[in-house]
């Protein structure tokens, strides 16, 4: 796992920088707080009260995230497939076509049911 030690070093440097920046921010600037300043910004009007239950976001986001997971899983199978491609022969290729075909059916279903429409 020696190849990961340098990544750790870079990560620590980046983390130190980020934490330091966030840490010193309150001390470098002026502190003249008032109620209006600490309110949520809504272009000058009184902030809209957060609807009971924290508000709702369109269900489209959920569908998008679901589709994303499905395609992400497809992608992570495509990667070892691509790397080992030359050894796999026609059998591996046909397997992959069947796999992608099935996922494509799911994709087509979502499309037909309007899951990809944003309006």
């Amino acid at each position, binding site marked *: 796992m020696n190849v990961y030690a340098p990544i750790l070093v870079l990560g620590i440097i980046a983390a130190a920088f980020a934490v330091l920046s966030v840490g010193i921010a309150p001390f470098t600037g002026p502190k003249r707080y008032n109620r209006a300043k600490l309110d949520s910004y809504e272009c000058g009007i009184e902030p809209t009260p957060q609807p*009971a239950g924290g508000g709702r976001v369109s269900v489209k986001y*959920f569908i998008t*995230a679901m589709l*994303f997971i499905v395609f992400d899983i497809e992608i*992570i199978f495509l*990667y*070892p497939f691509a*790397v080992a491609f030359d050894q796999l022969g026609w059998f591996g290729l046909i397997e992959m076509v069947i796999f992608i075909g099935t996922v494509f059916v799911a994709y087509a279903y979502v499309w037909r049911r309007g*899951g990809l429409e944003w309006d």
Partner: protein
Amino acid sequence: MSMVELTFLMLSGVAVFSALLAVSTTQVVHAALWLVLTLGAIAGCYLLIGAEFIAWVQVLIYIGAVVVLLLFALMLTRAPTGPDSATTTSNRNVAAAVSVLVAGGLAAIMVSGFAGERLAPPRGGVGSAASIGDAIFGTWVLPFEILSLVLLAALVGAIVLTRRGPERDNGAPGDVPERAQH
């Protein structure tokens, strides 16, 4: 105890600790964040046993996709996301019993499968992408193809669950022009 074993123990400790916090914190979004830490620590464990590809897949799929979906789901349901949003339910005791049983079962499987084995320094190429590709597309063909059906079922389920509400609310008029587009 070698360096690798020590790190492995520490990471497992982090995973268990943050998993406990994930179920005990009173704020659902914080719970999701503790879950991220758990999953990240497990990815670290994978790295230590030489499963490099699996480790990054764990980060990409679980941290980068599944918990993001969870966060989206938290934000789009009516469930409040403010403080004290993860209140306990009356099912608490049942849930605790079930989780103890599951943990016991998993522990039994681990002990019967790996008891007495030591963490060896990772052998070269075992967890590499090419060897995993060979294994999936050579040996584990059927599970791989069945997985695509699972994905299909998951998506169809998501669509059925989410589309029903708006269609009933809006009735036909709102839907017709949308369909007419294709």
